[in-house]
C-alpha cells in the first residue's frame, strides 16, 4: 500500500519554518458546485491539508421523513440530487418495493430504465459542462462547452416535461410503478434525442481531448488509488475510474437491467482524466441502452398497485432494510428502519446514503500535494452535488 495523505494532519506541529497559509475556499466561491467550504492549508501554493465543511444546504430531510408517510416522501427526494431527480425517486421506489416485495410491471420497469438512462445522460452533460467550466474559466472555453452541453440537456428536460408535466421535480414514481402514462409521440422524441446525442458526444470529445491544455490539466491530477476508492466507499463513475469493475446495473440489477447487456466502462488512471473517460464512455453506453429498449416497451399496466387514495396506503414492516440503485453519481441507497409495529406508515428512521458524500470524503486525500488551481478540477471531476451531500 502506498503512503496516503493524513487527513487529520496536525497543522500546529507541522513545520515551524514553513510559510503556511489557511485559505477558505467557499462557501461563496463560484466553483464549489453548490455551497460548501473547503479549508485549505497551503505551503506556498501547495496544499498540505484540506478539510471539507459541508452542511450549508442541510435541510434536515431525514428528520422530516420520520414525520411523513412513505407516500409523502417521494416529492421530497427529488430535491436531493437536483441534477438527476429522476433517479432519486427511483432509488426510493426500488427500496420500498424490494422491502415490501411488490412486483413492478414490465412496462413500468422498461420506462424506468429509459428514464434512468436519459437522466444519466443529462446529469453527465451537466457534469461535463461544469467540469470544463472549472478548468476552462467562466469567461472562456469552458463557458462555450457548458453552453453546448446545456443545449442538449434542454432536449432531455423537454422530453421529461412531455412525460410528467414538470421539468425538474417530477414525482412520477410511486410504489409499484409509474404514475404518468407514455404520451403519443414521446417515443419519437426520445429517438431524436438519442440520434442528436450520438452526433454531439464526439464533438465534445473533440473540444476536450482534442485540446492539449485539457489533457494537461486533467491527466495525473487527483489520483485516487483502487484501495482508497473502495475504502472511501466511492461509487459510480468515480469508483470505476479507479479501476474497479463495479456497477450495480450489472452486479445487482434493478428495473429492466437484467434484460439488457450492460457494458461497464472502466478506466485505470484514477485521475481526473480517467473520470472524464468513464463518463464519456457512459454517454455511449446510455445511448445504446436507450436505443435497445425504446422500440420494445411492452404493453400492459404501468403500476401493479391501485392508485393511492390515502397517504397511509404504504406500510413498511419492522426491521432494517438497505437497498441501493446506481444513479449517475453512484450507489444511492436507502436505509429504512420500519415503524414499531407492522402498521406504521412512516419510517422509524430513514437514511439516504448519498454517493456525493462519499465523493466528498475523497477530497482530503486527493487534494494534498496539488495547487489551488487543481482544487476546482478535482472537485469538479468528483461531481458532488451539495444538495445530496447535505440533504
Amino acid at each position, binding site marked *: 500500500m502506498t503512503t496516503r495523505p493524513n487527513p487529520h494532519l496536525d497543522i500546529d506541529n507541522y513545520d515551524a519554518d514553513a510559510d503556511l*497559509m489557511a*485559505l477558505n475556499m467557499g462557501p461563496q*466561491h*463560484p*466553483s464549489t458546485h453548490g455551497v460548501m467550504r473547503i479549508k485549505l492549508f497551503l505551503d506556498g*501554493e501547495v496544499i498540505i491539508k484540506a478539510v471539507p465543511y459541508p452542511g450549508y444546504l442541510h435541510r434536515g430531510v431525514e428528520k422530516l421523513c420520520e414525520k411523513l408517510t412513505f407516500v409523502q416522501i417521494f416529492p421530497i427526494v427529488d430535491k436531493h440530487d437536483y441534477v438527476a431527480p429522476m433517479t432519486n425517486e427511483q432509488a426510493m421506489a426500488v427500496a420500498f418495493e424490494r422491502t415490501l416485495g411488490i412486483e413492478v410491471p414490465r412496462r413500468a420497469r422498461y420506462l424506468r430504465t429509459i428514464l434512468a438512462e436519459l437522466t444519466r445522460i443529462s446529469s453527465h452533460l451537466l457534469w461535463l459542462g461544469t467540469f*470544463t*467550466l*472549472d*478548468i*476552462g*474559466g*467562466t*469567461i*472562456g*472555453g*469552458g*463557458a*462555450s462547452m457548458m*453552453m*453546448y452541453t446545456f*443545449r442538449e440537456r434542454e432536449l432531455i428536460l423537454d422530453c421529461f416535461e412531455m412525460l410528467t408535466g414538470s421539468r425538474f421535480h417530477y414525482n412520477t414514481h410511486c410504489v409499484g410503478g409509474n404514475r404518468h402514462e407514455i404520451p403519443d409521440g414521446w417515443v419519437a422524441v426520445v429517438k431524436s434525442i438519442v440520434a442528436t446525442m450520438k452526433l454531439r458526444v464526439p464533438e465534445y470529445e473533440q*473540444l476536450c481531448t482534442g*485540446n492539449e*491544455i*485539457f489533457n*494537461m*490539466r486533467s491527466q495525473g491530477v487527483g489520483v485516487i488509488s483502487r484501495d482508497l476508492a473502495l475504502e472511501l466507499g466511492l461509487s459510480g463513475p468515480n469508483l470505476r475510474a479507479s479501476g474497479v469493475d463495479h456497477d450495480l446495473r450489472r452486479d445487482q440489477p434493478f428495473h429492466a437491467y437484467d434484460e439488457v447487456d450492460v457494458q461497464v466502462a472502466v478506466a485505470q488512471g484514477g485521475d481526473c482524466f480517467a473520470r472524464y473517460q468513464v463518463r464519456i464512455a457512459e454517454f455511449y453506453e446510455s445511448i445504446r441502452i436507450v436505443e435497445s429498449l425504446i422500440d420494445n416497451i411492452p404493453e400492459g399496466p404501468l403500476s401493479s398497485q391501485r392508485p393511492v387514495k390515502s397517504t397511509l396506503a404504504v406500510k413498511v414492516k419492522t426491521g432494517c432494510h438497505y437497498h441501493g440503485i446506481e444513479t449517475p453519481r453512484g450507489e444511492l441507497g436507502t436505509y429504512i428502519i420500519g415503524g414499531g409495529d407492522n402498521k406504521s406508515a412512516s419510517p422509524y428512521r430513514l437514511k439516504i446514503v448519498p454517493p456525493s458524500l462519499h465523493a466528498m470524503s475523497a477530497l482530503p486525500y486527493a487534494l494534498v500535494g496539488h*495547487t*489551488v*488551481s*487543481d*482544487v*476546482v478540477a478535482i472537485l469538479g471531476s468528483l461531481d458532488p452535488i451539495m444538495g445530496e451531500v447535505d440533504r
Partner: protein
Amino acid sequence: MSELLVNPWFLGFAYGFPLITVLMTVGGLATWFERRFAGRMQNRVGPSFVGPFGILQVLADGIKMMQKEDIVPRDADKFLFNLAPILPVFLVLASAATIPFTGYWDDTGQWQSWLMVADLDIGILWVLALAGLMVFPIWMAGWASNNKYTLLAGMRGVAQGVSYEIPLVMAALVPVVATGTLSLSGIVAWQAENGWLVWRFPIVGALAFILFFLSSLAEANRIPFDIPEAESELIGGVIVEYTGLKGGMFLMAEYMHTAVAAALAVTLFLGGSHMPGLSFHWALGPIWFVLKSGALFVLIYWIRWSWFRFRADQLMELCWVLFVPGSLILVMLTAVQVWVETLL
C-alpha cells in the same frame, strides 16, 4: 504657425487627445464585440436590446458601473488600492503613443510613417518598458486589497508577467535585429520597402510572430494564460475587491491592452499600415491597419472562447522550457541571416 506644428506639446495634444478617445471607444466597443462574438459561438444571442444590435450596451454598463457604491475594504492600503486601477489604463494608453497608424510613399520612394503621437527613436524600448510595468498595478491591487485570493492572484500575475516579459522582448528583438532600428516607424518603413517580417525572414519571422503574439496574450492575461484572473479558482483575481468604475477600469485596461497588443504585433511583424500595391494614399493606411489588427483581435477572442486555461506551474514551464530558449534561438538565427545577407 510652423513652429507650433513641430512643438511636441502641441503634437502630443493634437494627436494624443483623439488617440485616447479612439482607444477608449475601441476598448468599449471591444467588449460589445466580444460578447456578440461569444454569443454567436455559444449558440446564444448576446447583448441585443440597447441600441442597434445592442451596440450601446457599453454605455449602459458604464452608467451602471458609475452608480455602484465605491467600497474600499476596511483594512486595505487605501492609497495603493485607489492608485492600482488608474495605472493600467495610463500605461496602455502611453504605450499606444508610438504606434504609427498610417504612412505613405514620399517623392523619393521612401516610406514615411505618419499619424503617431511621438516618433521615438527608441519606440520599441518604450513600449516594452511600459508592458513590463504592467505587473505593478496587478501586484498593487493584489497586495492592497488585503484579501488572500487577490494576494495569490497578484503573486501569479507578477510571476507570469515577469517570465513572459523575456520571450516578449526577445521576439521583439527579431525585427530590431532584422531592420537595425529601434524606432517603430523605422521598422514599418523597412517592412514596407523590404517586405513584411513574417515572410521576409521565412520560418524565423513567422515563428517570432507566433511567439510574440502568444507572449503578448500572456502579458494581457488572456485565456489560455489568464492565470491571475482565473474566475473559477481565484474568483476574479486581483479585481475581487473593486467595485463599480474601479473594477471597470481594470476590465477596460484589459481590453485596450488586447487591442494594443494586436496593434503592436501588426506593427512589428505584419507591415503596420502598409499593404503591398494598395498603399498609394495615406488615408488608406488606417484601413489596412485596422483590418490587420482587427483580424488578430478576432483571433484572440476565438482562442479565448474555445480553449481552456493552463495551470500556473504549467504556464511557467511553457515559458522557461519552450518560449525563452526558442526566442533566444530565433534572435540568433535572425542575426545569422542578416549577416549572410550582408555578405552576399
